[in-house]
């Protein structure tokens, strides 16, 4: 196989991991609604929670999406906490009202939150009851995006995993691509695979309920996102077979990912090369341009989206960077193994977080680039570190060949920016730090 640059003799698959259990500085799983509600166009996400949940959804989006959003929060009030029966009735009432106002809704997700989990409000039962009540127009599904159980992208995992059991059974041999991707990116992947004669190809989540796919023992699936551990397990329980592969970030990751699927479907290697040669060359060229600013630089990842390990693999192998620490909120060893195999030993892998200790390590290491959440970015910049906000990696099309250059660009831009800004006087003033104050 000539697809990859030489692999390290011993990769990082079995390296010990620094496990931390202190204060975490991460989003909860509700945040996934921000992109999921745009992906599934006939779905509505109803969070059953508190004012904090509503405030998070509003703030996490950074900007408010005022085109009538397909999500909302049923805010629990003092009276709802008094008796559970009341809360269920109240929920029925709010859902009836919502569905009457929005007849375009075909799938309703009841999303659990920290407060609803703590008071043990049974949303699974509510979803069953409502499915019966509103069938066949609307299907009601429940999952939890609570911060006591899920971190950031795990919300998408919980959502997709909840959809798997209700998918129809099929015996067809189909390829299922799993993970919510921007449409343009998804179409690129489907296009490449179809050009190799692979099909039929289905995508989970489907943009509409009616486009729905089946799953069964002849289904094979590939994950496009690294944070889909529960969905992976749910699909395997339905008999589907997972195609293990590195994740499709960068030219190398994309090639390895496509290669794994191509092997499963018995695609001849010259056909594979024929289909991938041109986009591979483009991706390499585009990555090389951004990598100019990244080569020889160090990077430090705070835990955020579970994309950290595949991205560290991309940055170290394709952009010439050195990883100092790769933090991830949760390390799924099996899913990460192909990526970790490709990485040279050296970086610290950390799982979980104790944010003050990690900040201390970061300040001590003084990396050239720190990938972190929005709450930490400006304070780190003010301390002289260059940062990349992690959430942009989730909100921007970064998968597959045509976006490989954009992905590298996301990391190179903060470094380029810092080198572009000339904020000091031409004649050195007395105290530069004072002038900034």
């Amino acid at each position, binding site marked *: 196989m000539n697809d990859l640059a030489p692999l390290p003799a011993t990769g990082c698959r079995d390296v010990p991991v620094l496990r931390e259990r202190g*204060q975490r500085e991460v989003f909860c799983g509700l945040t996934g609604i921000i992109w999921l509600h745009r992906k599934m166009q006939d779905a509505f996400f109803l969070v059953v929670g508190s004012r904090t949940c509503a405030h998070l959804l509003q703030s996490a989006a950074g900007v408010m999406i*005022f085109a009538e959003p397909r999500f909302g929060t049923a*805010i629990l009030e003092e009276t709802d906490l008094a008796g559970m029966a009341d809360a269920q009735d109240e929920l029925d009432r709010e859902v009836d009202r919502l569905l009457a106002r929005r007849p375009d809704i075909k799938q309703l997700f009841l999303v659990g939150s920290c407060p609803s989990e703590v008071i043990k409000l049974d949303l699974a039962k509510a979803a069953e009851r409502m499915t019966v009540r509103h069938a066949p127009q609307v299907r009601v599904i429940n999952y939890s995006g609570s911060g006591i159980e899920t971190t950031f992208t795990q919300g998408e995992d919980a959502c997709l995993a909840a959809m798997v059991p209700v998918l129809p059974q099929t015996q067809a041999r189909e390829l299922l691509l799993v993970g919510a991707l921007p449409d343009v990116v998804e179409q690129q992947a489907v296009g490449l695979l179809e050009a190799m004669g692979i099909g039929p190809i289905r995508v989970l989540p489907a943009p509409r309920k009616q486009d729905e796919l089946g799953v069964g023992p002849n289904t094979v699936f590939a994950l496009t996102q690294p944070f889909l551990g529960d969905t992976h397990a749910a699909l395997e329980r339905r008999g589907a077979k997972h195609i293990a592969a590195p994740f499709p970030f960068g030219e190398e990751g994309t090639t390895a990912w496509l290669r794994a699927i191509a092997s499963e479907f018995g695609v001849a290697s010259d056909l594979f090369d024929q289909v991938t040669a041109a986009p591979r060359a483009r991706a390499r060229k585009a990555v090389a341009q951004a990598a100019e600013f990244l080569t020889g630089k160090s990077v430090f990842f705070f835990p955020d989206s579970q994309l950290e390990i595949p991205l560290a693999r991309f940055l170290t192998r394709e952009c010439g960077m050195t990883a100092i620490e790769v933090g991830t909120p949760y390390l799924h060893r099996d899913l990460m193994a192909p990526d970790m195999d490709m990485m040279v030993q050296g970086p610290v892998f950390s799982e979980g977080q104790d944010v003050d200790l990690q900040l201390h390590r970061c300040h001590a290491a003084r990396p050239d680039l720190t990938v972190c959440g929005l709450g930490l970015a400006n304070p780190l910049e003010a301390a002289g570190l260059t940062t990349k906000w992690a959430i942009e990696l989730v909100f921007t099309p970064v998968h597959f060949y045509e976006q490989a250059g954009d992905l590298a660009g996301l990391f190179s831009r903060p470094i380029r920016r810092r080198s572009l800004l000339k904020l000091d006087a031409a004649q050195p003033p007395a105290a530069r730090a004072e002038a900034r104050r």
Partner: protein
Amino acid sequence: MKLAVWTYEGPPHVGAMRVATAMTDLHFVLHAPQGDTYADLLFTMIERRDHRPPVTYTTFQARDLGSDTADLFKTACREAYDRFKPQALIVGASCTAELIQDDPGGMAETMDLPVPVIPLELPSYQRKENFGADETFFQITRALARPCEKTPRPSVNLIGATALGFRHRDDITELTGLLLDMGIAVNVTAPMGANPTDIARLGAAHANVLMYPETGESACRWMERELGLPFTKTVPIGVGATRDFVAELAQFLNIPAQLDETRLRLPWYSASVDSTYLTGKRVFVFGDGTHVKAAARIARDEMGFEVVGLGCYNRETARDIRATAKEFGVDALITDDYLEVEERIEALAPEMILGTQMERHIGKRLGIPCAVISAPVHVQDFPARYSPQMGIEGANVIFDTWVHPLVMGLEEHLLHMFRDDFEFHDAAGASHHGGKSVPRSAQSDAADETGSMPGADAAPVTGTGTGTGTGSDVVTWLACAERELKKIPFFVRGKARRNTEKFAADQGLQEISVDTLYEAKAHYAR
């Protein structure tokens, strides 16, 4: 249970964070799950703060429930003290931690920390952000402020400015200068910029300036009672209010009321002929009570607008706002449901909105210009330039800010004259705004109006009703009248439509013809 799409206020613990972040040498230990740490980004991103908020979250997880969440809190509290060495700690619970009833206040008190520990009660399922800020600052003041010797020269405290406040940073600068001109020193500014030691000497001032009742009133009332400090009731936003404020303060301190007005431009700018076009512009005012009350007065008395509706989202100021509304002869809208606000704006069809970022979006949807006067804040509400709302410069800033969204005087006339011009037409928007000019087309004509009703070009059209009308009046627009209405520039079309419908209803007409339109125009001519 209440379905919310967008909210004007966060939960009360975010209010507590606004106080903690505004202060120095104070640390907040918040019993909360990991997701609640999102609140940090409000401060570091929206306000571009260069430090993390001084908040330690316990970030308990599902597996901790029922076993050791209490220990988790104690550990977090101990470590936060050791790491940050604050002069005082405040402790509280977010919505989820409130449910598990660990009593952070009680636990922290038993830990024998060498600094004051101030417990907060933040009822998440009843109250909201402003309450949280007000309550937190009140508890801090109550715990730390003690009677002390007055400063020899007249001095005041500036009370109420917090992190994430609407122009609080610049209002402090402006008021400090204004007070200096009056010969009054600032004893303490709090919460913003104060540390717990400063709070202890609040009593050294001769009076309190309550800048923002939303976040400082409880503390001011307590200081009035316990420390004998009177506090100002006028919030100095606008020319008239600033003058009243100076008079009020002069009386408290028994000094002459002097205000340096050399930099004040609003009165002349409003009086100059260029501003004639502002006369009687119909405005709707919505935001927090303090800013709405001030804005309504400025709109009527200092800009010459007509206030057609007003309201606030914080119930704490409802009584005050109802009184203001009565004075203006309109109904007050007290709600935190943005859909209700949108509905009211749609019904009133004002020519301009003075609102929050939420109303800015409503205005965008309905094609009504909007100037922002109040929190909730957005990154745009923290401009790099000096941009206060209070005092002399505040009045100047307000004049500019409110005029900017409007189509300006002469341009308005030209749009009337050349309404059929293919480039210079009303759908192209005000010429001093960015954005690509859209050539006139059948499409853009149809999607006009207040922009609210796609397909509203199908004639005849049923009237939108007068909102406050009698209810019996369903008036139909004949196609020709509808076409004539579209010839009226967009920034007065809403008013013309509304006036015509009201006129028709008052006359008992079922249909609106071109004649009805012009009869109504003559009827309402001013």
